[in-house]
């Protein structure tokens, strides 16, 4: 289990870095789906698999909803970005990783002594990376992905603190609600772009 949770943490770090650096919606959606898988592994450290799997299913449902909407509404031409901006986000991501590695053991010691370090690190990694991503993008699709990651990070930590069926159900509603908000925003963006194109 220790090996599995370490692999999950590495997966979380890689997928969140991918989402921070790259701005290609297909890659972002795939990374988010893998992120939920890794988060599920970390949640199983605190919850029975039967309950933890809810988070995985809900996460994948949310990912599917926004990915399908993007498939229908977003244009296929990938955004071209300068190497400098990719480098900047990459360095920012490395900075977040560094901060998390320094901060997590201290936080675990002072606030979450009953939690495994890998849970604290995994949760904080998602929180930190998604906050950084929120700060570097104003695109609705990326913002929704960041918010879903943020909640996933929080849920990894909170699952170890409290186990409640109602809470799990309501967090599932919140995640799906966020995905629906994303669907609405993406389709609205497309509606305006479409109406502009039609205008003479």
């Amino acid at each position: 289990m220790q090996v599995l949770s370490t692999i999950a943490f590495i997966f979380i770090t890689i997928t969140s870095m991918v989402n921070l650096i790259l701005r290609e919606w297909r890659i972002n959606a795939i990374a988010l789906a893998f992120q939920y898988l890794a988060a599920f592994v970390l949640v199983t450290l605190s919850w029975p698999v039967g309950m933890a799997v809810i988070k995985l299913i809900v996460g994948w449902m949310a990912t599917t909803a926004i990915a399908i909407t993007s498939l229908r509404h977003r244009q296929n031409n990938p955004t071209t970005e300068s190497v400098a901006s990719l480098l900047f986000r990459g360095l920012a991501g490395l900075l977040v990783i560094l901060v998390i590695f320094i901060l997590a053991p201290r936080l675990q010691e002072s606030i979450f002594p009953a939690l495994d370090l890998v849970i604290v690190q995994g949760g904080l990694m998602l929180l930190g990376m998604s906050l950084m991503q929120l700060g570097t993008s104003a695109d609705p699709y990326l913002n929704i992905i960041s918010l879903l990651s943020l909640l996933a990070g929080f849920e990894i930590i909170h699952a170890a603190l409290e186990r409640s069926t109602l809470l799990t159900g309501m967090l599932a509603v919140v995640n799906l609600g966020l995905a629906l908000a994303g669907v609405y925003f993406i389709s609205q963006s497309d509606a305006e772009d479409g109406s502009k194109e039609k205008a003479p």
Partner: protein
Amino acid sequence: MTLSTPILWVVFPLIIAAVVLIFHNRMIFGIVVTSTAALGLALLATFFPEDQTLVLGSLVVTFEESLAILGRSITLTYNIMPFISFIFAITGLWTLISGIPGTPKFFRPISLAITALLTAALGVEPFLYAALFIHIAVLASLPMLSPEGKKPHPGILRYLILQTLALPLILLAGWLLSGVEALPSDSPLVVQSAIILGLGFGFWLGVFPFHSWLPMVSQHAHPTVVSHLMFLIPSTIFVFSLNFFDRYTFLRTLHNLESTLSFLGVLMIFLGGIWTAIQDNLKRAFGFTILTEMGFTLLALSLSSQGGLSWMLMLFPGRALGFWLWGYTMSLIEKHNGSMEFKAVQGFAWRYPLLSSGLLLAQLTIAGLPLLAVFPIKLTILTAVLRNGTPLGIWGFIGSLGLFLFTIRLLAVFIKPNNTSNRKTWAVSEKTHEYLPILIMVLILVILGLFPNMIENLTSTLTTFPQLQ
């Protein structure tokens, strides 16, 4: 026959909202059903018997306070009924005017659903789960705040981001607070928990410096929706926040908490007032006015040891009616005029004097003009701050003047003749069904200003929080 209060005030309105949502294209049906349901539930909550038994002829209905859901419960007691009655009544008032062209078609069902969710938030046990109900309400509000067919503006994204950031903070703070109860008050964990909790509420309420979405959302969304949501959600959050003060003794006695709250409150009043005064867009100015109003509520909360909690609750009715009048008149002005920039509304009063007067009176009500509803409460709050001997009261007073200054600027713009129009005489272009609600509301605002004790019933909500009496 046995019913539970959560079924009546949470499940029932959600079902009604779902039905109206299905038939969202039938406007009259939607208005009649949502208004009747909201106002009916408000009336029922007002006259809800203390023994929780309702006798209707041969039918005896006994109410239970709790409804169990997945191992937890929603409990709506007799004590919280005045506030529930209030929020359903204002939702009913807003749905009555939702027929104005341009109002999002989902406004009626979603506003009723949001009211039901916020009611659930007030009664859920453990009370921390309220954060989730509130967040679901926020998510439900998004389709109304982001205009249909338009790209989501940065303001709505900021709103969503900041509200979502609040959720983990509140849940985490709740977990921390349950652990620090047993710790000595000088433990660093106590302060850390309070900071996390404060940040959570700061994000939720748009407290400075997390307020940037307020004017942006206000500028882009429909005035009816903005005025309703920006009153309903923060007011419920403020009442929900009382749970923390009620349950955690160390929060009530936390060193510097009152002074921090009053400083933040005055800062928001001052900045909101100044920003409002210099705006050239009517809708954007309202966003900053909301910031000022949040400041006044925070200020009242900070004066809890002097009776501030009662003042906080007594601020709500006058503010709600002021916001309603603002939303109603702005919606009609936008319908008749299109743009809400100062340049565009120049000379508007010559054509629509009653609408213009209604908007000015709404502004003055919110600003706290003597004789109007909010004045007695704002005067009491500012007097209490001044009596405390700090310079904060003066800054609060200056901030309030900003709202008056904006209203005077607006009046000057409204009556300045428009060069493009040939009209040189006053003409009432409004139809009777447009100006009648304005006249009725102005009358109510004046009556509430003259007899502020009429709204004292709302303060009995405080009996829900025994430690805050």
